[in-house]
């Protein structure tokens, strides 16, 4: 592809006290591309996506978004750039309803200013319905507390929240971890769906079958370093596992 990548990470490093979480990681992602980010526990996957989502600032390195260098200082900045993240624990407010969660931080206001902004609940409910429908999610009782929904339904809400602003890059952290088997397919369909909308996608998973099912590329992290950047079609699960546990050194012949 000749187009500039959607996002580029150059030499990103991050420490927490004495622990090196990320060590000079380089990564590029293109629009419409799905990257599966894999690695053993503690490899640095969560930290890497948090750098992109604004939850952490890198100690060293540079981030380019749509060709320009950016500083992603906080979650709000990331969202403003068009980067949306769905965390493993979903970061939902269990006592709020579906529209409440989808619009958290971005509520539609009827009128008012300062501390007294009146919510436009009916409009938010209507838009929430539309968003869910457009994603192919069927959710009846919109007004129930999200804490009472099933794992898959909660996942849908979290993903809807991430995509309704038409972001450019979506990050999914272990999206299938808490799901029942039949709900997993649904998530994978969702990923396909997003891909066709030309959104860049990074998703972390431990389940290699899923990664192989949807990812265009597979990036392997180990102990804070990127040890492999592979095209899915050209590699195998065994190879990926070996990279994860360190049986093969960096080998670009697989790229």
């Amino acid at each position, binding site marked *: 592809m000749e187009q500039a990548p959607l996002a580029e990470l150059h030499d990103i490093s991050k420490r927490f006290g004495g622990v090196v979480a990320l060590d000079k990681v380089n990564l590029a992602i293109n629009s419409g591309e799905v990257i599966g980010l894999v690695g053993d526990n503690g490899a640095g996957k969560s930290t890497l996506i948090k750098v992109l989502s604004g939850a952490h600032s890198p100690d060293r390195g540079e981030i380019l978004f749509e060709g320009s260098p950016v500083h992603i200082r906080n979650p709000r900045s990331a969202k403003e750039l068009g980067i949306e993240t769905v965390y493993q624990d979903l970061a*939902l407010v269990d*006592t709020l309803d579906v529209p409440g969660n989808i619009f958290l931080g*971005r509520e539609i206001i009827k009128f008012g200013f300062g501390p007294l*902004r009146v*919510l436009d609940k009916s409009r938010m409910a209507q838009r929430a319905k539309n968003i869910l429908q457009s994603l192919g999610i069927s959710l009846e009782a919109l007004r129930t507390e999200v804490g009472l929904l099933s794992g898959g339904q909660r996942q849908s809400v979290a993903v809807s929240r991430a995509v309704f602003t038409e972001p450019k890059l979506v990050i999914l952290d272990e999206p299938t971890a808490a799901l029942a088997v039949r709900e997993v397919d649904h998530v994978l369909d969702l990923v396909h769906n997003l891909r066709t909308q030309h959104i860049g996608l990074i998703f972390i998973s431990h389940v290699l079958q899923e990664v192989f099912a949807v990812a265009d590329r597979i990036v392997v992290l180990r102990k804070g370093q990127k040890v492999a950047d592979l095209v899915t079609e050209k590699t195998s699960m065994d190879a990926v596992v070996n990279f994860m546990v360190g049986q093969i050194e960096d080998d670009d012949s697989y790229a």
Partner: protein
Amino acid sequence: MPERWRIWALDYGIYVVFVLLMLVMWQLSPYFLTASNLLNIGSQVSMIAVVAIGMTMVILMAEIDLSVGSVAALAGAVTAGLIHSAPNGWSLWLWLTIAISAGMAVGFLAGLVNGLFVVWGGIPSFIVTLGTLSIGRGLVLLYTGGRPIFGFGEAFAKISWGHIGTVPLPIVIMLSLYLLAWLFLRETQLGRYIYAIGANKEAVDLAGVKYRPIKVSIFALAGTFSALAGIMLTSRLDSAQPTAAMGWELDVIAAVVLGGASLYGGRGTVAKTLVGAFIIQLISNGLNLLEVQAYWQQIAKGSIILIALLIERILSGRR
């Protein structure tokens, strides 16, 4: 128990309890269901009820404010002291406004201190407000010299003894503030954030909402409510006493918890807090009417709260 009944009981059970209690009182004493007695109850509960608005919001955020009694007493004392220091020749209404505003400002500042120590200092609100409870009470003693400040004139007494029509002013104040608070929590963005912060403040943070200033503001608001109640008390007694509002924190928290708010945050409404406050006051009133001694009132209050919490726990199935 069928699921629907269970949820209904959780949401509306307390209203049922309230009505049942009224019926029981009515049966036990012919003096209960008179307009004058009911209006008395309303006035008696109005101060604790006002404080309970602020406390509800604080508890919704999964915090607590133990300093409410001391802040109320301090605000009342400052207002009282200022009224007495009115310079000659100034308009009475102007000076009263200044004195009352100063009292409210004291409450606001106290709440601000609470909020800053909790949010920026990272100290649990239980500890912070325990400290301000002590400091506040000490300041009251210092300011009053251990003696009550009394005698403020007719105009100031109107706050607690005036009427709008046949309804005592404290009841009007209480109900208006409750209405505003109910609308605020239910219909505004900030109101929603208060619930969200209590339920999952990390999620709120990740959603890009600046929750820290919100928390500090709500503590300051709670302090202001405490101050208003303290001024109402000073007007009611026509004196600011060093021992004023002692123990209010327990009654207020009891009202909020009885009203179904969760001490873990994220759940509760001011409407039910109001019902909770009334239930507690009804018990006091009823026991007085029936000539039951004060010890039993303490025991009754405590037992009712425990039983109510137990029922709530069973109904919500929380382990």
